[in-house]
């Protein structure tokens, strides 16, 4: 049996993915992700989110005031629907994790955008250092469109002998 596809989610994807009641997301954002949401529940992909993503999610929930509990509840529902295929990932500072600072430094040097967006930088490096990861799904324009970041990620993954990590928005079945 093939090993499950491991995907990392950025906060920009996690929020509209679980926000079925559109508490903080727009209708089209939630609707665009319906197919992806269904494929996650049906398939055997494993989702990992970095602790920073969880922090950003909670921050959004806290700032949404009266909707705070609803949003957290939506996340809990999604996690239970994933039946053990959702985890919060923190690289250990052993083995490849020992390179965290070096990989982070390299990422900051390859694109200035990351210097001003430390949370994005940490989310990116967390995914780079996860040997199992195949994709980092995000709606962050700079992460997705930057060829400098794409090259950096490819080189680092090659250096560690990891499989390719794609950084892109979630797939759509529609063309």
């Amino acid at each position, binding site marked *: 049996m093939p090993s499950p596809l491991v995907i990392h989610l950025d906060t920009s994807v996690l929020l509209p993915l679980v926000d079925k009641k559109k508490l903080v997301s727009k*209708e*089209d954002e939630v*609707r665009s992700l319906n197919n992806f949401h269904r494929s996650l529940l049906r398939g055997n992909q494993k989702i990992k989110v970095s602790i920073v993503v969880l922090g950003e999610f909670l921050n959004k929930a806290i700032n949404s005031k009266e909707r705070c509990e609803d949003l957290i509840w939506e996340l809990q529902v999604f996690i239970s629907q994933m039946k053990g295929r959702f985890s919060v990932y923190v690289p250990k500072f052993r083995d490849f994790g020992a390179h965290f600072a070096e990989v982070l430094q390299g990422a900051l040097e390859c694109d200035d955008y990351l210097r001003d967006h430390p949370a994005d930088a940490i989310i990116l490096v967390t995914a780079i250092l996860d040997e199992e990861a195949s994709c980092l799904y995000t709606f962050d324009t700079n992460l*997705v469109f930057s060829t400098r970041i794409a090259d950096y990620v490819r080189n680092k993954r090659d250096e560690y002998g990891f499989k390719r990590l794609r950084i892109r928005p979630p797939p*759509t079945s*529609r063309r």
Partner: protein
Amino acid sequence: MEAIENQEAKIIYWVLEKCDTVALRYFYGIGDGEGEMLVAIDRKERASKLCGVFEKLGERLDVRSFEKRLIVQKRVYMLQLHPEFHPYLGYHYSLFIHGPYSPDLADIYYHIPKDVKPAEIDVSREALEYGREVMRMDRATLEIASTIIEVIRVNRGISDERIVEHVHMLKPSYKSAEIWDILLMVKNLKRKYNLVF
């Protein structure tokens, strides 16, 4: 009296738009209630301009289905690259599943007041020609063209080969040859109409 207040609010809004909004709001002590009124006026004006642009190009602003909203999103993205259409549109775009997406624009077309009248749009014949070219593009062309432009924006000086490679990686369901064709079209449009990106 109401008309005068409305006019006054419009002037204040115009000043706020032109200057540092946060600082001026603080300076004038504009509170939440007044802020909401200004936002409502702004929304109505933006909706009027949006409807006006579509009317000028002989199209109806149709946002009744997801598919139609997707096309509106991409058409506005392409239209506002033209310096003459930009002042009437000027939406901030981020990224979503089908490429560039503007939550601000969505906010406007979801809340178009029933009494909105399309604004007068004063653009040259050449701008109209560009607008009509955009209106003729199908969804796939709009999606790929807007993605290509974002790749160019984020990576200044990038080679054509690298653009096609990156867009193909992001949109694997499109063949490289299709992306090449659309890249050439985008470059032609930029040259012909002095598009800004």
